[in-house]
């Protein structure tokens, strides 16, 4: 067994570094997950909702103009942007709401950066009739106004967080504080493969539907495994979901793409695997952006979803063991990926996914013609239209006319 996941660790990464008050709830979550993950009724309910509510399986699409332009491998998009609510986040929230319901929790809390996880959580909370509170950094409520409105329309309360950097990291702190206080009747739906055990494993398992579909669709479309899979890494859930079935498999390169923000040398980025040190944040041991003293640093990315100063412990493990490789892409390059994807393929990608699209060129050229590369298009760009328009200088005004 390569991974010690069952003990809450992936090699030396992971664990459960939280206030004592939460330990009982984590044990309860772990027990309930063990009990239901293979329970036929649970699996059937989840599968039916994935099909009818989310719209799974999402397509695997040949991005033919990018394939031609890059002159390398065939570029395939795994279309998580077509999942209900517009991103892969729905896969995990659906799984967790079923668990919360089985555990008899009436109240749901979540944190969100880009707002996609908040929207997905508000959505499943509405579906199951649960009270829902979403913590969001004040800075992010401005960047992602549209998603704030969506959450409120879905019946969730959105709480702007005004501490620290006012982004995702602080929203997580606030959600944990809420959970410590209301742990009896509240389930915390963590949005990515981070947090104390058993969250990184549970979230990964619920996201692995992405990788399992890639596997089946690849076989059908080109008769074998992809030669590479490229996915963006914020905290890492869409990447782990896409990678997981292929970990350790001969001939499949797994490539995670972090946010280099204004450049690694600027210090303003979200590249914790590239630039972080081993540390403890939000309940787990992993790579963390921090000062020499151990204070957590603020991350930066043009995409709110990659603006997080740590990465899930399983990614740290995959990196350490050489089972996956990690790269980083700047804000400017991500915008180029955004533009390319929009104009050549007719898809506005999330700015997060645009990082993966940009880096895919390099991998495609390395692989060469005839090989197959899957890019996880983790979400759609509707939420990013304002940010992208401002950065690219595109406005709604049209000139001339007849």
């Amino acid at each position, binding site marked *: 067994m390569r991974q010690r996941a069952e003990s809450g660790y992936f090699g030396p990464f992971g*664990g*459960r*570094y*939280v*206030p*004592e*008050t*939460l*330990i*009982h*709830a984590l044990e309860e979550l772990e027990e309930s997950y063990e009990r239901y993950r293979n329970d036929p009724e649970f699996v059937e309910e989840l599968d039916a909702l994935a099909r009818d509510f989310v719209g799974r399986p999402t397509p695997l699409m040949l991005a033919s103009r990018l394939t031609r332009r890059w002159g390398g491998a065939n570029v395939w998009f795994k279309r998580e942007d077509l999942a209900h609510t517009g991103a892969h986040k729905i896969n995990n929230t659906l799984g967790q709401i079923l668990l919360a319901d089985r555990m008899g929790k009436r109240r749901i809390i979540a944190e969100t950066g880009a707002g996609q996880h908040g929207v997905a959580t508000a959505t499943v909370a509405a579906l199951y009739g649960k009270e829902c509170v979403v913590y969001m950094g004040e800075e992010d409520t401005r960047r992602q106004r549209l998603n704030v409105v969506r959450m409120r329309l879905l019946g969730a309360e959105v709480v702007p967080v005004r*501490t*620290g950097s006012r982004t995702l*990291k*602080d929203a997580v*702190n606030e959600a*944990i*504080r809420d959970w*410590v*206080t*209301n*742990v*009896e009747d509240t389930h915390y739906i963590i949005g990515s493969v981070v947090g104390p055990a058993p969250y990184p494993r549970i979230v990964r398992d619920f996201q692995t539907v992405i990788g399992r579909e890639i596997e089946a669709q690849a076989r059908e479309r080109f008769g074998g495994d992809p030669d590479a899979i490229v996915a963006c890494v914020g905290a890492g859930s869409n990447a782990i979901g896409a990678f997981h079935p292929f970990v350790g498999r001969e001939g499949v390169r797994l490539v995670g793409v972090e946010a280099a923000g204004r450049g690694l040398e600027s210090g303003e980025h979200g590249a914790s695997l590239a630039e972080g*040190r*081993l*540390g*403890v*944040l*939000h*309940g787990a*041991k992993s790579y*963390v952006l*921090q000062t*020499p*003293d*151990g*204070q*957590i640093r603020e991350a930066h990315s043009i995409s709110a979803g990659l603006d997080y100063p740590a990465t899930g412990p399983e990614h740290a493990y995959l990196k350490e063991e050489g089972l996956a490789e990690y790269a980083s892409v700047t804000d400017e390059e991500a915008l180029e990926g955004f533009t390319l994807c929009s104009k050549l393929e007719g898809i506005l990608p999330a700015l997060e996914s645009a990082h993966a699209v940009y880096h895919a060129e390099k991998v495609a050229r390395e692989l060469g013609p005839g090989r197959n590369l899957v890019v996880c298009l983790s979400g759609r760009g509707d939420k990013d239209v304002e940010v992208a328009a401002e950065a690219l200088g595109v406005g709604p005004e049209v000139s001339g006319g007849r």
Partner: protein
Amino acid sequence: MGGRERLLGAFSKGRPALIPYLTAGYPSLGGAREVAEAYLEAGADVLEVGVPFSDPLADGPTIQDTTARALENGADVDYSLGLAGEFSGRAPVVVLVYYNLIFARGVERFVREAGEAGISGVVIPDLPVDEAGDFARAMEDAGVAFCPLAAPTSTDRRLEEIGRLASGFVYCVSVAGVTGVREKLPPGAVELLRRVRAKVSAPVALGFGIGSAEAAREAAGEADGIIIGSRLMQLVGEGGPERAGRWLQEVRAALSESAGGGH
């Protein structure tokens, strides 16, 4: 006498030990010294010194604000350990520190420096006993007490484990929640103290949210120590160290009275 022994000694005075908390570096680097002085003058038995951390997820708004201010003031780990060491000759000092600060420094180095500074014990709000084994033993070897937390949600099985690792007092969290002033003693606090006492031989101290002399007196019947943080930090913010010191004196008087009355 080692730091750990002095800490345990503070719990054998026939009344609950009074343990006021201060954030190192708040309201200023020098001001924190005045706060500690005021606490000692008011009759503190143990000082609890909080090392400011950027992400204090077990703390409510009051202590979050003080740690943010302290970090702006430039309070780093060196300064905080220095402050603790300055006072460790006059009273046992317990350091409250989030785990990443220890981990970043290197566990070995932290343990050594804590011992050299004469620190009596450590409280780590995000290091539950499951992850603490090696650290707790290293602390004990250095003569520094490991003071684990116990919560209302802790099962009896966990309380036994907590008792096994405690080489100082057990820090009982009065309520499932973060730090912050509460006017009354939460109803579950006394029950938790009784449950812990039944499973644990170490002294038991109660903290989180004790905001009035009345609440302190109520807890005094069951606890070996009373930890007061947010209320004092509020008072420092409003009226400076003297204001906090005066209030602490009232609490101290209330505790002595309650001990005198019953015995």
